[in-house]
């Protein structure tokens, strides 16, 4: 799960990390009402999940109320990488002496949290990582011990050398780690962390992702969830025990198992088709799951064919076939369905499908080819 900048910096503030104070607005009228006419310089920032908003024109530094309202009007409604800007954060403008990068992620290989700091702040950190990796200082945090003070200090020393700045930066890193750990974060970034002309260190932007598996114990984080339309669909699916991700192709897929679902999509692509989605219905033969899955698929008007790919393991193919037919009876599909069954009791399952009047197939390859053919015939 992701949150917006204004939510991330709100959490920073709660953990004692200095941030630039901001006002959240979702319309030009709101800006008009909330921003005082004091001639001050402010930064107007689009609240979107994707990076690169600066390049896309989603950040403007302005002086005075009039210019603020104008910039707000330009940014609100703007489209940045598929996201429409619905909210803007208007913050005080600080005089920046230097910009830094600070981030934390869970690392698969070391199975620990990696703390990263860099003097190359305010720019795309992935570019820095690719072009000059030595400019990013990395340190692994023992997951049981946590970030020790000397580690925070050692990292801070990569950015600052003056004792007072060192104290400020060490404090920010320790607080950021506590926040990262307490909220089950998977990615937390301050970019840029700024040294102001007043020798204060301030977080000017913030990004946080969280572990979906831990949301059950993070009610405060879950309450921050704001979803785009696409995500709303994924969350709806999740609520029904389905794992669904919409894509742009024409062949809708219903598969049991995530790896098999990916392999099915790949197979469609391999033989010249385009999958319309990823959809894993899990390991049950419950007809309701197939009904729910179909219901999700057909909302996507691009879908021309449905490919159901089931490998019977513990769940036997005959049971799955009965569930499928119950589902197909309930939903009257206007588009063709290709059913592939394999594995435990496949023969019995295939017979049930045939008796229902469909022509099932037994291999993934055959299923993919048939679905592609049908999707082309129909379009």
């Amino acid at each position, binding site marked *: 799960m992701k949150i917006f900048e204004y939510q991330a910096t709100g959490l920073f503030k709660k953990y004692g990390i200095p941030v630039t104070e901001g006002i959240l607005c979702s319309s030009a009228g709101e800006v008009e009402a909330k921003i005082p006419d004091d001639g001050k310089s402010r930064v107007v920032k689009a609240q979107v999940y994707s990076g690169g908003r600066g390049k896309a024109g989603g950040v403007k530094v302005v002086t005075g109320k009039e210019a603020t309202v104008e910039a707000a009007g330009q940014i609100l409604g703007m489209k940045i990488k598929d996201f429409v800007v619905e909210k803007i954060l208007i913050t005080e403008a600080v005089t920046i002496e230097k910009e830094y990068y600070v981030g934390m992620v*869970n690392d*698969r*290989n070391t*199975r*620990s*949290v990696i703390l990263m700091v860099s003097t190359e702040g305010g720019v795309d950190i*992935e570019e820095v990582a690719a072009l000059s990796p030595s400019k990013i200082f990395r340190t692994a945090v*023992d*997951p*049981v011990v946590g970030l020790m003070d000397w580690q925070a200090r050692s990292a801070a020393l990569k950015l600052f050398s003056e004792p007072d700045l060192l104290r400020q930066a060490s404090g920010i890193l320790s607080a950021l780690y506590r926040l990262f*750990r307490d909220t*089950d974060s*998977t990615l937390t970034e301050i970019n840029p962390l700024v040294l102001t002309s007043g020798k204060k260190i301030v977080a000017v932007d913030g990004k946080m992702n969280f*572990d*979906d*598996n*831990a949301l*059950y*114990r993070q009610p405060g984080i879950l309450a921050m969830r704001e979803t785009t339309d696409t995500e709303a669909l994924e969350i709806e699916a999740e609520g029904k025990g389905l*794992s669904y*991700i919409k*894509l742009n192709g024409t062949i809708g897929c219903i*598969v*049991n*198992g*995530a*790896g*098999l*679902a*990916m*392999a099915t*999509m*790949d*197979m*469609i*692509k*391999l033989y010249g088709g385009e*999958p319309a989605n*990823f959809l*894993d219905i899990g*390991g049950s033969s419950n007809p309701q799951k197939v009904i729910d899955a179909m219901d999700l698929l057909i909302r996507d008007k691009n879908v021309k064919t449905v490919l159901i790919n089931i*490998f*019977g*393991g*513990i769940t036997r193919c005959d049971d799955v076939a009965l569930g499928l037919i119950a589902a197909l009876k309930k939903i009257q599909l206007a588009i063709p369905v290709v059913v592939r069954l*394999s*594995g*435990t009791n496949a023969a019995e399952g295939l017979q049930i499908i045939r008796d229902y009047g469909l022509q099932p197939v037994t*291999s*993934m*390859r055959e299923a993919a080819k048939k679905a592609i053919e049908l999707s082309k015939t129909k379009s």
Partner: protein
Amino acid sequence: MGILINKNSKVIVQGITGRDGAFHTAKMKAYGTNITGGVSPGKAGLSVEGVAVFNTVRDAVELTGADTSVIFVPAPFAGDAILEASYAGVELVVCITEGIPVHDMMKVTDLIKRNGTMLIGANCPGLITPDECLAGIMPGNIFKKGSTGVISRSGTLTYEVVYLLSESGLGQSTCIGVGGDPVSGLYFTELLEMFENDPETESIVLIGEIGGDAEEQAAQFISAGITKPVVAFIAGQTAPQGKRMGHAGAIISSGTGTAEEKIKAFIEAGVPVAREPAEIADLIKSGSGF
């Protein structure tokens, strides 16, 4: 023989009184696995599917000599269940549970390392040494005794692959689902090494997917020291960036962890990569001189 488990393994089930625990206990027993006990706190003295229930893993280990545990405990408690097994001296823990927070797993994998415990999973189908021992939820009937070792990040995709292998006459020495989470127990390199040292294994199938760089590491490891033929398959070539594809670990972050990178790494390491599951058997047969 195979690796990790065999006919001498003594297996207990943590969370045996739960629905899944009881169901798969019956399946494992039916397959021939030596289930020596189950664990469910406060339920000692009960019997589930003919298996005696103990209050703690320590009791089960002390009284039955178990060396392997399969965990079916709900996600909020599963990390602690792994720790309980580890501190009770279980040698191999297989955690089936899906949805354990990654912060828990970072701590758990660190702590059990100190006890020398091996972990498979979490969020995995377990493992099987055909005709000897099934420790997990895999459908036993699709497996066939043989000399191909299988390591996979997936569940049903593994069954698909194994089914096709068995159909092609390629039986399996041991088949391991390492799980779909970003932080897990034993992974490709450790298991490749075990298969390399296992006299019964003659070839290895490695089924990877998007997310992380374990496949790239495996490719390097293979070219550096694995002499047995390896065939790889990678799922997720059509997966979009930034989306979690079912498995918590199957996500392309910031453009890394793509199927392309992984396939490239294998090709460069001289490991043939199947374009679809059905090709795997052919590639093994050609590579290992069948």
